[in-house]
């Protein structure tokens, strides 16, 4: 029965690939995105992957007939058609993080809440591989897969007025990285000098839906070195291709 297709106003339609968050449903979203990207359907203006949906924005003036478009999109997005090899290769990005201190003012709170040593929090936060389900909320912000449940910590009672971009945080069962400066209530456990969003760059966004992310603990000196390399624009985060 999937994908289901339904209108989002008069300039977008939503393809739905499941009603629960599963890796399989999100895989279907990624695959449909990939297929439609190569479909050369002339009316597609842009697409936004969600957890279990793919929203396709179109130009109504280029649409042949609405029902025909729905049919074409559904067919083009359908699973089962062979994919080119590079889709099964996922990018695995490793983000260096300085944990604790003034870069991670809530690390101790997260440790206390979960009755762990701070070292143990860092160990558990860095040993997981997080899947990027989708992007949204702010430019360059990734929605990451689940956090080790022993690290889950409620948001701060009083949100901070300004959390600097690069801050790595925990909110309930989620972990994430602030991609731009913004107000927020996440528990901040560390900071990555790597920029997730840089409007001045040809490719302004580092992470894309479908990527895998891990965090790597670095010391103050390494952090400073990477920070300066990022400032100069010469730092390249470690990226591996991973066979799924």
């Amino acid at each position, binding site marked *: 029965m999937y994908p289901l297709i339904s209108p989002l106003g008069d300039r977008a339609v939503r393809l739905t690939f499941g009603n629960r*968050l599963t890796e399989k449903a999100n895989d279907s979203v990624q695959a449909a995105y990939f297929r439609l990207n190569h479909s050369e359907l002339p009316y597609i203006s842009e697409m936004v992957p*969600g957890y279990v949906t793919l929203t396709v924005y179109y130009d109504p003036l280029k649409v042949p007939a609405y029902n025909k478009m729905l049919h074409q999109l559904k067919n083009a997005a359908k699973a089962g058609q062979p994919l080119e090899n590079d889709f099964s290769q996922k990018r695995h990005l490793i983000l260096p993080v300085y944990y604790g201190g003034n870069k991670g003012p809530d690390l101790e709170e997260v440790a206390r809440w979960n009755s762990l040593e701070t070292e143990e929090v860092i160990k558990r936060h860095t040993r997981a591989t997080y899947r990027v389900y989708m992007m949204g909320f702010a*430019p360059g912000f990734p929605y990451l897969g689940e956090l080790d449940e022993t690290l889950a910590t409620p948001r701060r009672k009083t949100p901070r007025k300004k959390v600097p971009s690069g801050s790595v945080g925990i909110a309930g069962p989620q972990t994430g990285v602030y991609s731009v400066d913004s107000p927020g209530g996440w528990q901040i456990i560390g900071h990555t000098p790597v920029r997730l969003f840089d409007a001045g760059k040809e490719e302004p966004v580092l992470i894309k839906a479908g990527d895998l992310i891990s965090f790597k603990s670095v010391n103050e000196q390494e952090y400073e070195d990477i920070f300066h390399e990022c400032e100069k624009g010469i730092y390249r985060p470690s990226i591996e291709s991973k066979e799924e």
Partner: protein
Amino acid sequence: MSPLIKIEEPGLHTTIQDTGRYGMQQYGVVPSGPMDPFAFRIANLLAGNAPDEAAIEITMVGPSVRFLENCVIAITGANLSPTVDGRKVPVWGSLYVKKGQELQFGKPKHGVRAYLAIAGGIQTQKVLHSRATYTKAELGGLKGQPLETGDELPGRTLPDTELSKRKGKLLSESLRPYYQSHHMVRIIPDEQESYFTKEALQTFYTHSFKVTPQSDRMGYRLQGQQIAHKQEAEILSEAVAFGSIQVPADGAPIILMADRQTTGGYPKIGTIITHDLWKVAQLMPGHTLSFQRSSVEEGHLWHEYETNLLKKLSVSIQQK
């Protein structure tokens, strides 16, 4: 390129906008662009510009603007009582202004958002292919912020022979929108209306909702009868559109506008047809809205109508 205008007083929330930063919503970058796309397009048309040139969006309290060169300007949208050197000038028309003259705005009469286009377009630096200002991520405009006192905006200096061809254009009265204190807008229902009770859907389509003061370029929060969910008041986050109406757990609908976040996690009751967005953009806090069920087909028909109208206007303006 040289500075064409200088901001003497910034007004309430004055920003540079073009048609928007499209193509990057999948990376969380919202398009921004004008709140009232129709008035914006007409402003560029009247100034003899391409439809995607950058213009100034003015909100309620207008700026004071000094001209540093001879220019042709066009003002459209809300009637905020514009004057040049103290003399009343028309809304929905283009006019010639001399170097040194000052444009000011006064009492808001109808509507909220006015557009000021300048012949040749505002030529600030593009950020991610657009000049549209998005203050939350500090993109576009000047330093990603609303205009401030002392800001100078670059543009193309055009010879007086060209300017005289562009001045004195007026949009015919019959084509000017009426900005009222109540508007009915048409909605394309979302499949997520299944998250709401039958009674809630009936309430939504039969009652008026008030625009609250918590309304800005990001979204309009509405006040009225509660729109109750059956159970769940959250969905798995997914993309939204300009004009989507989402309802969080408190039952008060939010209309997502030009600076919305790209994705949302609340169920959507529907999305306003593109042609009706201007009606929402021009409402003040305290004004009211009601909703009528519509369809994708109707949305497309009106979109086509508007596109054809703009094409015809463009041709007739160039011929005159």
